[in-house]
């Protein structure tokens, strides 16, 4: 009666509302279609990849004319020989090699300075992502004995105003000079020596010889931090105060070098336009010199695509180097991928038959290569750990990549081959410097958000977001449909209740008195409920639940009574809020656990799990007591509302994560979406005993098992590396590496995935 009234008063709803209703009413069909389409679209990405192109006109890599000649290469060779000679000397201690490099730099006429830094223990900054890079400031307990010294040479551009700079980085271990590292220093030095004389330089060139004895990343990050935080009061006072005993470094060198080398100061050269990390790999290649590009910075951030394009263009078209990006090798031999690739090839063939204009489909081999590259691109972005020292630059909005040059076999012995190698790689670096030197603004034209499927092919954000959007689209749809169904069923229940009692209006007064008793018991149970953490929410929630109970009992007699039906979700929201709170507590626990001395990963992991379970039990017991709440006819559909809240929370979490780090969200979505969508109380499934429900229950159990993060980790690791070397402690080590690098993936696992999993399990074992 009331419904028809409403319908007539409102008339036809607006088209958008009708569309929404249509989607919601067919949510099962649409969710199946959308999630399948999402997975398919993900598999299609290698096919949809576009060729890269240089978007910024001012780069002009085509007009680069390399000037590097044998003369500079010879100088580079000289440095390499000296370094190698130094290694054989017994006295070649840490400072020796730096001094040698500095000597060479200053002979070229560059400004040289040293930068001393201390090794910093890895620290836990859970909210690092939301703050500026400078916000983590000087840490106290630096071990003074452990320090590294970076050597920095700066060429001032004859045509520049000193406001912009290009950075070349060569990491090398000052304690033990490696042959490959010496080679990379030689390359950088030959380019550097050329650049001191060229007239076209418009940006200063900084050559950072990073002392990699504590890791390449740490050295570069320390230098960048000091570069971007000027100290106004005196020079190096902080270091001097903290560690007086190693201050002799300065005095020792001042007598050694010429006037131009000033050691009392941190040299700067304006904002950085781009940075290039040069390494020479020790994996020798069989056939030709090749080049590996590493681009992933922390949290899946990538440098501007133009930088990769420029390097790729110059390497392939000018120097004839083979360019590679990282691949997930184990994918290459997968049978199903091969069939899929052949299928896509066939499809593309048909498509071309129908319309030759259609450029769909690539050869199967290319598809497999593309997906292996894409998978590794996704994997490294999802980890959120930078793949090299270039990652440190991204925190300061500087585009940087690591270029690892892999020489052909037997290069290292052969003098002629080595000269050729130095010439080619030196010319490549010089070309990149020339191109970047042409830049008028900082990189902004091309993409920042992309996935690589090969060095010259990419999938942009607009394409890969479609796959993700399709994957998560069912979540709000199913949530809405569950919510609507739950409230409708309650309404119908209300009206059913009211219709028999309406016939006995006269006797309505007696039920009210009898119903007063449960009301009191409910109100006595409220302190438990209100003790929940979210104050207002809880108060509203329990008063709402109270009121719904009350009005169902008292005012069911009047058909038009006022209900609080639209606020029923508050109770479920409170419950899931508590679980999410627990999730954040769990993700903070490792910070305390790792303070325990002498803990193996396995024991730490076990302690972590035990503490988490304890926390969950305590929170459930004290705050919510969700297992023991009254389940009258009202809360029969309670699990549905809880599931709808879970789905909404998962949707919000995944969408947020897709903006922070797309790859994590995509992989997490693949795990989480089926788990969330399938969740259904086992009790109901078992009660019905049809094939469909039993299979659903089994699916649920499997998904629930796999969805638990440690299990997921072990299963994935086993799938790619074999199950033989699996250890429970591995998960702990993995997680530790995540939080040591401040990866947002860690937060995602703790704050989004884990609570969602707990809620799903809670729904599975819900009493109905």
């Amino acid at each position, binding site marked *: 009666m009331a419904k028809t009234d409403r319908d007539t008063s409102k008339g036809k709803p607006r088209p958008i509302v009708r569309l929404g209703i249509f989607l919601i009413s067919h949510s099962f069909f649409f969710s199946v279609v959308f999630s399948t389409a999402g997975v398919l679209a993900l598999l299609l990405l290698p096919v949809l990849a576009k060729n890269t192109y240089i978007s910024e006109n001012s780069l002009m890599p085509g007009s680069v004319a390399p000037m590097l000649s044998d003369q500079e290469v010879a100088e580079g060779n000289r440095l390499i020989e000296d370094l190698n000679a130094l290694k054989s000397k017994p006295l070649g201690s840490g400072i020796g090699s730096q001094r040698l490099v500095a000597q060479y730099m200053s002979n070229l006429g560059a400004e040289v300075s040293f930068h001393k830094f201390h090794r910093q223990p890895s620290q836990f900054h859970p909210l690092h992502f939301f703050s500026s890079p400078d916000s983590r400031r000087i840490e106290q307990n630096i071990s003074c004995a452990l320090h590294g010294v970076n050597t920095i040479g700066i060429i001032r551009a004859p045509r520049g105003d000193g406001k912009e700079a290009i950075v070349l980085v060569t990491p090398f271990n000052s304690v033990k000079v490696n042959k490959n590292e010496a080679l990379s220093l030689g390359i950088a030095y030959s380019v550097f020596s050329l650049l001191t004389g060229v007239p076209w330089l418009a940006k200063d060139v900084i050559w950072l010889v990073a002392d990699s004895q504590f890791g390449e990343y740490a050295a570069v990050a320390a230098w960048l931090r000091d570069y971007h935080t000027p100290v106004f009061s005196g020079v190096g006072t902080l270091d001097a105060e903290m560690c007086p005993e190693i201050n002799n470094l300065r005095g020792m060198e001042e007598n050694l070098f010429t006037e131009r080398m000033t050691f009392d100061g941190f040299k700067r050269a304006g904002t950085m336009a781009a940075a290039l990390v040069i390494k020479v790999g020790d994996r020798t290649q069989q056939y030709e010199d090749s080049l590996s590009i590493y681009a992933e910075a922390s949290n899946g951030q990538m440098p501007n695509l133009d930088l990769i394009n420029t390097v790729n263009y110059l390497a392939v078209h000018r120097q004839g180097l083979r360019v590679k990006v990282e691949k997930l090798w184990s994918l290459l031999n997968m049978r199903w991928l091969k069939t899929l690739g052949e299928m896509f090839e066939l499809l593309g063939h048909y498509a071309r038959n129908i319309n030759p204009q259609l450029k769909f489909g690539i050869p199967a081999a290319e598809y497999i290569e593309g997906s292996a590259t894409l998978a590794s691109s996704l994997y490294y972005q999802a980890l959120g750990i930078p793949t090299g020292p270039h990652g440190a630059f991204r925190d300061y*909005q500087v585009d940087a990549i690591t270029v690892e040059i892999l020489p052909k076999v037997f290069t290292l012995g052969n003098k002629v081959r080595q000269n050729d190698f130095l010439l080619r790689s030196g010319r490549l670096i010089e070309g990149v410097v020339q191109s970047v030197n042409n830049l008028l603004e900082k990189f902004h034209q091309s993409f920042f958000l992309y996935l690589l499927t090969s060095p010259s092919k990419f999938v942009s954000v607009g394409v890969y977001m479609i796959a993700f959007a399709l994957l998560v689209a069912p979540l709000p749809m199913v949530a809405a449909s569950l919510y609507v169904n739950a409230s409708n069923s309650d309404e119908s229940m209300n009206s059913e209740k009211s219709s028999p009692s309406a016939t006995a209006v006269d006797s309505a007064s007696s039920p009210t008195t009898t119903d007063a008793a449960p009301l009191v018991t409910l109100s006595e149970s409220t302190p438990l409920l209100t003790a929940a953490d979210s*104050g207002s929410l809880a108060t509203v929630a329990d008063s709402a639940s109270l009121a719904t109970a009350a*009005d169902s009992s008292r005012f069911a007699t009047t058909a038009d009574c006022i209900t*609080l039906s639209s606020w029923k979700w508050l109770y479920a929201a409170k419950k899931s809020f508590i679980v999410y709170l627990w999730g954040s507590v769990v993700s903070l626990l490792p910070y305390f656990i790792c303070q325990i001395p002498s803990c193996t990963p396995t024991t730490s992991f076990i302690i972590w799990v035990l503490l988490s379970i304890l926390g969950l039990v305590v929170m459930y017991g004290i705050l919510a007591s969700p297992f023991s709440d009254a389940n009258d006819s009202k809360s029969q559909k309670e699990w549905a509302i809880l599931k709808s809240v879970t789905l909404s929370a998962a949707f919000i979490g995944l969408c947020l994560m897709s903006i922070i780090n797309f790859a994590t969200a995509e992989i997490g979505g693949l795990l989480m979406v089926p788990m969330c969508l399938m969740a259904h109380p086992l009790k109901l499934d078992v009660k019905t005993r049809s094939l469909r429900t039993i299979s659903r229950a089994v699916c649920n159990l499997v998904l629930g098992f796999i969805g638990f993060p440690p299990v997921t980790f072990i299963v994935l690791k086993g799938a790619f590396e074999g199950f033989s070397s699996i250890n429970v402690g591995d998960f702990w080590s993995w997680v530790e590496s995540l939080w040591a690098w401040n990866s947002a993936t860690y937060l995602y696992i703790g704050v989004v995935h884990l609570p969602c999993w707990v809620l799903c399990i809670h729904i599975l074992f819900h009493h109905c």
Partner: protein
Amino acid sequence: MEDNKEERSAKRKQQGRFWTWVTASVLFRLILIYFPQNLNLSSRPEVSTPLTSLRRLAEGYWLKQSSMSPYAGSMYHGSPLLLSLLGPLTVKRIDGQPSHLLCSLVFVAADILNSLLIRATGQTLQIAYRQSLKSLDLDMISETMEILPSGDIAALMYLWNPFTIAACVGLSTSPIENLAIMLALYGACKRLVPLAAFGWVMATHLSLYPMILIIPIILLLGNGPDTPRKLFLLRRHGKVEENSSSDSCQQERVFSWSPVMLLILWTIMWSAYVLLLCGVSVKQYGGLWEMFTSMYGFILTVQDLSPNIGVLWYFFAEVFDFFRNFFLIVFHMNILFMIFPLAIRLHHRPCFLAFVYITISSMLKSYPSVGDSALYFGLLGWFVYELSDMKFSFFLFCVYVGVSLLSPVMHNLWIWRGTGNANFYFATAMAYACLQIVLVVESVSAMLNHDRKLRKLSSAKLQDGKS
């Protein structure tokens, strides 16, 4: 008898619970105040706007101390009274304590006071509403209402709202602006004309937009708090037809002009006083005119285009200069256009009208912050009962959570990572504005539906009585 006792003990329990929660919220705030470095809330654009930032206030105070105009250099845009009130607290440091501790304590106190005012006003509203329902013989509904202590709910919703906590801990002066608004509403509800006038004058002085609240205040003073007034008329007609004794009709009030006149008188007095005080404090530095241009001129001409959660900064950053004035007028007229239709439709519910006005102005104001949203969420708690059938409540809740988490992420993407741009952040601002529109539309329609339902019930009662 026993029922009564139980009821009383339940009420006491409820009271105790309320105070526990209030203490807990104070403790929570104090804990957060002691970890300011990690949160860095005071530099978030969502929390501190050019008008409410305490850092700017400290700067203004410093300028004033070095005998320059506090408005020099376009740093400070607040009131000179606030400057002399909070300024000395910004420079005072206690060793070993976080800086700005005293200011934070002031804001915490303001928040608590706000919540108490909200509670008291809510209780007054509830009592008045219950009485009017009783006189309409809709007793059973008023009984349901007893279970929902809307005053307590509103106060706790205000105190525990993350927005309120962020605004309080993030050192923005919006708790004090909210306090002025609440004083005005409280005074009007309790018919304390001088207090209402003072609150309104202070609120207008501090942030200009509460000026439009004069309409709900006049309605409150003239008509009394929210009632389904039309029903009385209906009832009277029914009774007249019925020719029964009409003694129950005395509840019906006519608009009384005397408190309104008093309000106008008091308003004039208070504004003269405030202007005098301001004049004294800015006398050496260009006088009142400079204060007006740099406070209200700054608000009205949207000079600061740094990003915030509103929609105006983006628009005025994009708009051509010669259209600027035109669009300034258009945007500000937007608020004014909505005043009168709403006042006509909701004149019988002045407190709800005030809620709607505050929501609209916090959506369309030039420098909105989460502190404004905190206030209207608190006020929303007054109408838990009336809005119990509100549609899309779950959807609204989810989107609010989503947007408030998305906004810092987008800001980070734009400012710190450089991979996003202004559009990313503006998208969340637009989503936020749309959300507030949906909130207003849904709450108003739920309120009107509630009124309709009451009318239906009461006419059904009448019919029953007749037959």
